[in-house]
């Protein structure tokens, strides 16, 4: 075992001594995860506030003076970019990936802790650069989160001068941060597993995060390249994405560039990005469902292969975001077909989640409620995806509120539901305290019902043809006046849901101080992260001896066993062996 450095030599782990090395410049994956988590949730709250401002304008037009058309577009852009990249990607991979991978595969830390630490500091820098754009002349960019050229860098778009440059710089820094973290996650999963931990014994959480990280390492290059090219267009006056055009009555120096090239590059990143967010969520929800239904996950192998298949397919569907951009019809056919094919492994996963619940011993705990909520929102968002994946149906629905409703259900709300489930599920492990169950349930019902109050009506708005990203509808004949009352109702729901997140924040902080001690393994879960000698786990995770794994992560309710769960590090007993090997072991 010449290659296993940390695993067999715990003396090589230098315990951090000072406050600074322990909590600030920490190389411990758990501290880095919490740093990632706090930063991500903080920017997420900024983005939530921006969405409230947008909704105020849409629900009650011109009631607030400080929201003008420019700032509205800036809110839209920053809300989208922060939520997708700086909250979801960072929290799922940087936060939960960092915390759970080493604990779940039985490693002492990530393979290169120093690089892992750098990853967080680069991420923080990218967040600071991004937020700095609120304070530069012209404010942040208002180009929409897709940053389509040519408008993104031309006068008329808010923030075309400073905002867009800071946005691109921030993205480049984020990609560097992600790459440093991502290399660590992939290498840790492949090379630093403990004794007996085979790939097919890993919890689905690790599978989801692992596959998503691989997607990220292969998809972010496209965003990096397009950010560099657009930066050169903006600063040096090259014309990669800029055709010859007339702006404010003057013909510009640009000529011969292709805006559609940017769209291809952007969506070659942008579509895998959806699954970078979704796959870790799929994995975590599988583990939460199995634990709280006291039943093994249905079809573990299928779940793994579905994750891998979705990951592979996600690279050949990108142009379904560009049906209206103009394409050879055969390409539209191709991308519609691949898009619909990706529904197959996704549907397998949904069926397997439902079948995991079927005849399970369901404990309606807060994490479980959020997980079941996720199955609803995800199925719902996935079904509208089938509409939009077809060229002929997409064309009339494109750029309407139907699209807004679809992606908020499928990649906004659904991963957020899983994130809440995950935070509530692993809170006892991370803090050693139990959260308040009652507050958690109130938080769930506000969030879950509120989600439907917000997004269901948006589908109708979309069918009416209400265009998205518009500051105000003005006198548009085809939109009935009743659409406005629907918008007002959506706004009220959105504000209530937004405010109800304060319950969650309060719960997290209150329980940190006054919560009941969680004790060891409060959910009676089988996976390794709950089997550490200390709760919360100490530096090095496992004490003097690494655990040995004897079984998969889903031995719940095994017939003949003493308890209704058998942790992964419990040896296989003789009675089990004589009872024969169950399927999927």
């Amino acid at each position: 075992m010449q290659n296993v450095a940390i695993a067999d030599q715990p003396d090589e782990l230098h315990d951090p001594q000072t406050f600074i090395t322990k909590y600030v410049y920490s190389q411990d994956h758990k501290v880095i995860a919490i740093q990632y988590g706090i930063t991500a949730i903080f920017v997420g709250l900024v983005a939530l506030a921006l969405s409230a401002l947008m909704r105020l304008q849409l629900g009650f037009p011109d009631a607030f003076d400080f929201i003008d058309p420019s700032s509205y577009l800036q809110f839209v852009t920053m809300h989208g970019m922060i939520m997708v990249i700086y909250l979801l990607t960072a929290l799922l991979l940087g936060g939960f990936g960092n915390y759970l991978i080493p604990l779940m595969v039985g490693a002492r830390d990530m393979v290169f802790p120093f690089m892992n630490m750098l990853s967080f500091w680069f991420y923080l820098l990218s967040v600071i650069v991004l937020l700095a754009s609120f304070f530069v002349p012209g404010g942040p960019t208002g180009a929409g989160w897709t940053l389509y050229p040519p408008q993104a860098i031309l006068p008329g778009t808010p923030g075309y001068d400073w905002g867009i440059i800071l946005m691109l710089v921030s993205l480049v820094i984020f990609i560097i941060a992600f790459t440093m973290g991502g290399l660590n996650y992939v290498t840790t999963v492949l090379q630093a597993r403990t004794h007996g931990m085979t790939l097919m014994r890993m919890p689905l959480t690790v599978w989801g995060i692992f596959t998503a990280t691989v997607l990220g390492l292969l998809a972010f290059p496209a965003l990096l390249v397009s950010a560099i090219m657009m930066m050169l267009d903006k600063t040096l006056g090259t014309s990669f994405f800029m055709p010859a055009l007339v702006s404010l009555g003057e013909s510009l120096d640009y000529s011969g560039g292709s805006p559609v090239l940017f769209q291809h590059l952007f969506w070659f990143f942008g579509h895998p990005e959806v699954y970078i967010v979704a796959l870790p969520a799929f994995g975590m929800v599988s583990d939460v469902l199995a634990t709280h239904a006291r039943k093994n996950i249905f079809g573990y192998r299928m779940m793994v292969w579905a994750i891998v298949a979705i990951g592979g397919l996600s690279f050949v569907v990108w142009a379904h975001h560009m049906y209206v951009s103009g394409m050879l019809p055969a390409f539209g056919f191709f991308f519609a077909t691949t898009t619909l094919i990706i529904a197959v492994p996704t549907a397998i996963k949904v069926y397997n989640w439902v079948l995991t619940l079927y005849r399970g011993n369901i404990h309606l705990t807060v994490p479980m409620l959020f997980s079941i909520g996720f199955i609803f929102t995800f199925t719902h968002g996935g079904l509208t995806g089938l509409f939009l994946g077809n060229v002929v149906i997409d064309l009339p629905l494109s750029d309407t509120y139907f699209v807004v409703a679809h992606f908020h259900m499928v990649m906004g709300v659904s991963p957020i539901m899983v994130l809440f489930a995950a935070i509530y599920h692993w809170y006892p492990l991370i803090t050693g305290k139990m959260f308040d169950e009652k507050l958690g349930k109130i938080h769930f019902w506000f969030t879950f019902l509120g989600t439907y109050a917000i997004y269901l009506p948006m589908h109708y708005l979309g069918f009416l043809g209400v265009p998205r990203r518009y500051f105000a509808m003005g006198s548009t004949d085809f939109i009935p006046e009743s659409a406005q009352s629907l918008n007002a109702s959506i706004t009220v729901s959105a504000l209530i849901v937004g405010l109800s997140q304060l319950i969650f924040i309060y719960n997290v902080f209150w329980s940190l101080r006054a919560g009941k001690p969680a004790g060891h393994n409060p959910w009676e879960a089988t996976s390794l992260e709950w089997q550490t000698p200390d709760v919360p786990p100490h530096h090095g995770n496992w004490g003097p001896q690494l655990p040995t794994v004897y079984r998969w992560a889903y031995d719940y309710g095994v017939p003949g066993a003493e308890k209704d769960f058998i942790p992964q590090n419990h040896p296989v007993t003789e009675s089990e062996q004589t009872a024969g090997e169950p399927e999927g072991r």
Partner: protein
Amino acid sequence: MTIQTDKSTSYTKPGIEGLVADWSSDRQTFDLPWGKLMMWIFLLSDTFIFSIFLTGYMNVRLSQTDNWPNPSEVFALEIAGQHLPLLLIAIMTFALITSSGTMAMAVNFAYAGNKRKTVILMTITAILGASFVGMQVFEWTKLIVEEGVRPWSNPMGAAQFGSLFFMITGFHGLHVTAGVIYLSIIARKVARGDYEKKGYAIVEITGLYWHFVDLVWVFIFAFFYLW
């Protein structure tokens, strides 16, 4: 199903059987040091970056209506009245490919434990890399000062020629520069004896990066100078 937990036997199996044994085993999937696997994954990611750059290049070039400059004219040198197309590029490419050779020799000597020869060969590699960057600076200067090519314009035709050339060779040049710095740091550490206990895998990891940078140059060379 019994799980293969003893890694010592799994690598002896050839072909598909060995592959399956590696991927279904515990602890580690590849019999590689962590750093080496990480470098391979990084290079895969970097491959995507350069592929996307070159795909963008092809797209932009094919959609130009303006005249695309003839590379053998643009990149020609006048020496003693002789018109020599692509001479400088040939020398640059030769220097870089040679440096790959010296790097491979350095890896060989590192594993043999020959510290002195490893350091000498890594230094030669770094010098060849630095001379490549130097010649690139010369080429850029010639293009900018003598031929009047700019990132935003080009007197010989399509403006995108300059944009793409400076962007992609610049990005590659940054990689080479980073590689020279990386090589120098590792060579110094080898000389100091830092790896006598840990083993010399790091030299091979550095070499992986260096060979990758060379390989990318072959593609850039083909796309910019031969097409």
